[in-house]
């Protein structure tokens, strides 16, 4: 063992913190090395002297000073408004409450986001990126009063125009998301209009005129809406209206005993 090794272990050796083998190695080195023995003697003496330093008695006025400061602090606390006192009482626990609050807020946000996003066509659970395209687009049903008994419209096949190619990188792909969704709504609306062609022929002129007016108004709302959520909302109104018209026709067909 070298002198450096020994000196690194001296503090632990003198304090009895070395195991038996380590202690023996240091002891053997100290027997043969006067310089290290000198250092060990000095350190032992220093340690003993430090331990022998006198206990210091505090001045008698210390307790009176503590009591005076406690009384002053108590009076100051009593003068504070009740809400500050309550805040001071809860302050030590704030970090724990804050941690719990953060977790709860994160959970609520995640739940809200998931629920909100799940309410939009094609964005619900299982339709996110990487899950692959759905073979059939489930149509959202918002029945008008006269079609409450509707069995629901038949699923409409996902139009090919919904499949807007993905961008090369994730950032660009996210930027395309709004356009992709608007395109999907437009394609769904077009498919519904095509479905309505046959029943439309059975409508009266007044019914056709009312339908066309309402359809045009909704399309104008789409054109006027800002890109993003407002436009998606306008598109959903169009799709709901077309679904309602289609469903109403099916109900009429069912009521008259014919095939929908």
């Amino acid at each position, binding site marked *: 063992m070298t002198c450096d090794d020994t000196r690194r272990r001296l503090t632990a050796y003198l304090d009895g*913190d070395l195991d038996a083998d380590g202690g023996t190695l240091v002891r053997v080195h100290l027997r043969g090395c006067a310089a290290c*023995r*000198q250092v060990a003697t000095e*350190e032992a003496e220093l340690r003993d002297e430090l331990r022998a330093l006198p206990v*210091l*008695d*505090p001045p008698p006025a*210390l307790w009176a000073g503590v009591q005076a400061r*406690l009384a002053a602090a108590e009076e100051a606390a009593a003068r504070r408004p009740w809400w500050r006192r309550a805040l001071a009482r809860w302050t030590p626990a704030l970090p724990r409450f804050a941690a719990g609050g953060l977790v709860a807020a994160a959970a609520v946000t995640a739940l809200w986001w998931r629920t909100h996003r799940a309410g939009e066509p094609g964005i619900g659970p299982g339709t996110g990126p990487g899950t692959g395209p759905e073979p059939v687009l489930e149509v959202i049903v918002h029945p008008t009063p006269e079609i409450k008994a509707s069995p629901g419209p038949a699923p409409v096949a996902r139009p090919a125009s919904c499949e807007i190619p993905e961008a090369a990188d994730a950032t660009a792909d996210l930027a395309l998301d709004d356009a992709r969704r608007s395109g999907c709504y437009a394609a769904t609306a077009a498919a519904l209009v095509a479905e309505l062609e046959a029943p439309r022929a059975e409508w009266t002129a007044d019914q056709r005129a009312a339908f066309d007016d309402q359809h045009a108004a909704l399309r104008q709302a789409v054109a006027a809406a800002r890109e993003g959520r407002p436009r998606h909302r306008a598109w959903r109104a169009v799709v709901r209206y077309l679904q309602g018209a289609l469903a109403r026709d099916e109900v009429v067909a069912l009521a008259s005993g014919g095939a929908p």
Partner: protein
Amino acid sequence: MAAALADDAQLIAACRRGEARAMEMLYHQYKRRVFGMAHRIVGASDSEEVAQEVFVRVFRGLAAFRGDSALSTWIYRLTVNAALSHLARRGRRHEVGDDDLTELPAPPATERDSALASRIEAALGRLPAGYRAILVLHDVEGLSHEECAAILDCRVGTCKSQLHKARARMRELLGDSLGDRGARAPRGTET
């Protein structure tokens, strides 16, 4: 140990209820160590102020004391923190002037004497605050490495290594005051 914890718990409960006798008992139980640590870390002039601050923090903080550590460990931690914060606020390391050290009479080469103790106190005041804290806790107050680590909020290994360095620095500061001067080997001849 269990009895001590039970005693501490009773004392804490009584202090929380605001019982003056219990508060005084707690003060007397810890006053010497708190004052001694404060005195040796911040120096004589500010020690009373720091000790007062520690006891005020103790009594005002007892309501929030959760018992994660022993009461003594918590109080010593408050003491060391208050002392080190005080030093930081003061903006300079407390130093006992070199005059204090050099004007002390050279100790005789025989038994331990009060002059050596004075020189040690003076040298302690010249150490960096962190070294001073570990020396006071471990060597002066006789606390274990585990207790020191809990008080200083560091690992036991760090505590040991800091103590080793602190003692080495103290030996440098004390120079020839330590050891058997008659048998001293010349420095720098080590292998």
